[in-house]
């Protein structure tokens, strides 16, 4: 029992990353009808927004501390981040410590801007082209973005830390009345899951309960009619693209303490996210989230020692295997709608 709960929890954090990327992909596909192979790159860009932000925060200047001496007897040079000077030492240190969550504030506008520029500058010209062309051009864009990041940040992983308050793990088993020590779970992962839940809920609520969201949903159902009603649907869809980019970026920001960002992390996630979208059903938002979480949990169950002993190598292929089985038995995926991507 405790093993099962532990594996479900383990699956949730990875699954929520899949779900967030798949949500963005589905939003873009559902609104603009574009298959975006650069979405993994947006996830990666988000992660590097966090890196950039924390580097900006730790920009420092050198001051000479006369009261201390280094080993040669000269006055000690101390690097002091600018934030210390602005907010005082304690607050400044806290800001640096909390750089990953704070990076969210920085990432949202940056990613929305990137998304809007990408849509207006490139994707716009591909609405009338075949899906294969859309896949290929965004694939090319993904390579370009990846290489730019590689040029500026290098090819190595960049470790990022969660705030110190969230270091370590907590005893989840004891909380729900099981033996202490049965289920130990890191804080940051549960925070990631909650964050993903809030983000998904926010996006869905935005679509469901605001006038803007209503218009967008109407546009997804029948773009032409909405256009004929005198609504500038293109502009709304562009904004949705920006939002989808921001969702992917935020997923990347919060994932940095779990998995140190490197330039090709986007591609690694992209392949699985596409499997997630297809399993969930092209164009279905709940399907994408459901499939993301399910596949994440499935993957973590397959990595259990007992199961690997039974079926060696299953942990590496289970997602693809599940995708193949689902696509062959339910051609539209778990919750796919009729008439989407069937031409």
């Amino acid at each position, binding site marked *: 029992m405790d093993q099962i709960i532990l594996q479900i929890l383990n699956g949730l954090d990875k699954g929520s990353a899949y779900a967030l990327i798949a949500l963005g992909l589905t939003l873009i596909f559902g609104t603009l009808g574009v*298959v975006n192979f650069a979405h993994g790159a947006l996830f990666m860009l988000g992660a590097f927004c966090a890196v950039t932000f924390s580097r900006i925060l730790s920009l420092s200047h050198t001051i000479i501390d006369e009261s201390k001496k280094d080993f040669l007897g000269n006055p000690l040079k101390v690097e002091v981040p600018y934030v210390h000077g602005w907010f005082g030492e304690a607050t400044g240190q806290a800001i640096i410590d909390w750089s990953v969550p704070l990076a969210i504030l920085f990432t949202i506008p940056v990613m929305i801007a990137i998304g809007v520029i990408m849509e207006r500058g*490139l994707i716009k*010209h591909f609405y009338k082209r*075949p*899906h*294969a*062309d859309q*896949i*290929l*051009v965004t*694939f*090319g*864009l*993904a*390579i*370009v973005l*990846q*290489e*730019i990041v*590689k*040029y500026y940040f290098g090819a190595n992983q960049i470790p990022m830390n969660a705030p110190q308050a969230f270091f370590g793990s907590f005893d989840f088993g004891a909380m729900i009345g099981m033996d202490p020590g049965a289920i130990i779970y890191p804080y940051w992962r549960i925070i990631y899951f909650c964050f993903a839940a809030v983000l998904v809920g926010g996006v869905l609520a935005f679509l469901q309960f605001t006038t803007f969201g209503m218009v967008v949903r109407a546009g997804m159902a029948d773009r032409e009619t909405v256009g004929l009603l005198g609504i500038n649907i293109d502009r709304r869809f562009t904004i949705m693209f920006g939002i989808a980019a921001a969702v992917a970026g935020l997923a990347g920001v919060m994932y940095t303490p779990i998995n140190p960002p490197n330039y090709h992390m986007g*591609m690694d996630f992209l*392949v699985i996210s*596409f*499997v997630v979208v*297809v399993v969930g059903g*092209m164009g279905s938002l709940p399907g994408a989230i459901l499939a993301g979480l399910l596949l994440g949990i499935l993957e973590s169950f397959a990595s259990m020692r007992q199961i690997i002993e039974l079926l*060696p*190598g299953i942990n*590496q*292929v289970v997602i*693809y*295997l599940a*995708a*193949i089985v689902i*696509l*062959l038995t339910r*051609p539209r995926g778990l919750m796919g709608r009729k008439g989407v*991507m*069937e*031409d």
Partner: protein
Amino acid sequence: MLGLNKKDTFLLFAVAVLVACAPILLNPFPEGSAMAQFNAGYPDLMQRFVIFGIFAVGFNILFGLTGYLSFGHAAFLGAGSYAGVWMLKLLTVNVIPAILISTVVAGLFAVFIGFISLRRSGIYFSILTLAFAQMSFALAASVLTPITGGETGLQTSLDDPRILDGANTSGNIPAPNLFGLEMSDSLQINLAGWLWTFNVGYYLAGVVLLVAFYIAIRIFRSPFGLMLRAIKSNQQRLTYTGINTRPYMLACFVISGMYAGLAGGLMVAMDPLAGAERMQWTASGEVVLMTILGGIGTLIGPVLGAGLIKYFENIFSKINENLLHQWFAFLPDGAEDFVVAIIYPFIGKGWHLTLGLMFMAVIIFLPGGLVELGQRISRKLSRTSGDDQTKSTK
């Protein structure tokens, strides 16, 4: 000739001449000159041009004719490579059985994957092939280690059985050969500073490329090829007229997979080593890039694309910062640093960036790739020369 019309015969002939003269054509700069590093006429690279050319021609038969975008084609290349190395290990170091078996094994693998993947079309097909390729990659790198050598890869060793060969007395691992001619053997001619290397392995691969190219031309011009084009333009209508498209698609997929296996077999014939990374989806992406860059749906395009990408990968990527400073040394100091700083991200280690930009530019402006570029230029030239003629007749 050979059942081809005049134009195709000319094309095949042109490719044959290019393949035959490549060691000379690709070495335009004398040995030791400053430009010598742009010479691509060394055996290893020329073999890669030809082998990836075969791979891309095969991929183009699938994607170019039917429009089914497979993102898992490298799986067949990998399967072919493994089968080839096993033949070299078990049977004989003669490369003929290895190449044949790798083609057959890749074909069987393609029958299996194609039978399942072709139930769906469009993006679902792409994802299914991708899923299969990633599965093969993951399994080859982990569980199948006894067969595939895992992450270190599979290679020939001294105590392999090689049942058809005589006892090995030399104490070295025998090199792959063709009836005694070793693949790495080459004839070097040094002529007034130009160094030309005529390599056995390269010419074997070149002959195979010509055969593969000839078969591709025949497929393109056959009723079968026409049927595949019909599937691309409107599969639904074809189904309504009572034609079952599945067998055509499967045949096409298998042929395309066999081309990939053939390329894999040639790869291990040149260098008896097969690794799991050959199956990774980035490798599948690379063949897509080659085909698109060269010109999708054209005969010669994929070969050009493969050559271009491999040239970039091996030659362009070697340009480093010092060399750039040398080239732009004629500029004033500040300008030199400025120019180098601007160019540097795009070359050397950053060649992928150039590749990505070039690829995007091709998709956006030149959907027909290099071939379309060539056609546009030649059309423009012929139009201007035509104008001259009309003027002169006036």
